[in-house]
């Protein structure tokens, strides 16, 4: 599973992209975020308030209960501010 971080999630985590194999009980995006918090203090800080985090799976916006597959590309980021 490829996990991408953007904007302040990237700067807090200190990394733009990770190749990960979460355990089988990590079934959806919310569970993945909980699991990621254990990887480092940076992950824990970036994912402390999930109401401020948005996600995309395979480049489509999804809600946190979106079910994950092993080869998904998962992105985490704050609300977007383009234009």
């Amino acid at each position, binding site marked *: 599973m490829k996990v991408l971080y*953007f904007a302040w999630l990237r700067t807090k985590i200190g990394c733009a992209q990770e190749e990960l194999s979460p355990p089988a009980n990590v079934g959806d995006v919310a569970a993945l975020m909980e699991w990621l918090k254990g990887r480092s203090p940076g992950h824990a800080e970036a994912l402390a308030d999930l109401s401020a985090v948005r996600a*995309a799976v395979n480049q489509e916006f999804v809600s946190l209960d979106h079910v994950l597959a092993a080869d998904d590309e998962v992105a985490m980021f704050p609300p*977007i501010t*383009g234009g």
Partner: protein
Amino acid sequence: MTATIIRVQEEDFDVGEELARLSEGTARMGAVVCFVGLVRDVAGVDAIESMTLEHYPGMTEAKLRQTVSQAEKRWPLEGCLVIHRYGHLEPRDRIVLVATASCHRDAAFEACRFVIDWLKTSAPFWKKEKSADGEYWVEQEHSDREAARRWEKD
């Protein structure tokens, strides 16, 4: 027949040249409406020194294509152009160009407004502004969410 041009790039663009490119090959378009977003030198009370725009390569282009394709379904367009920059930008720099062309101005105005409103909440870009106080990530504006939501009602 519709000309669709979507580009995500670091370089600046020339509005006149881009509009000319949009109307190449057809004399059916009577109306072209364009929106240009520029970097302002203030945000709230802070003076902006510069800005960095980060995006999600791949998803950005896909989302812009989806937005343009929705606009093309909703209005009879002869052409639609979106150019969005990323990277380092300074006050007065162009950020984004949306241009829509149609036989009549109603469709061109509505579609242009739709694309910029929709883009603001669906294209994965994040702005970081730099002022005398340091650098900070810009928060999404409530008014932008409302502007995009308006188009969902129809």
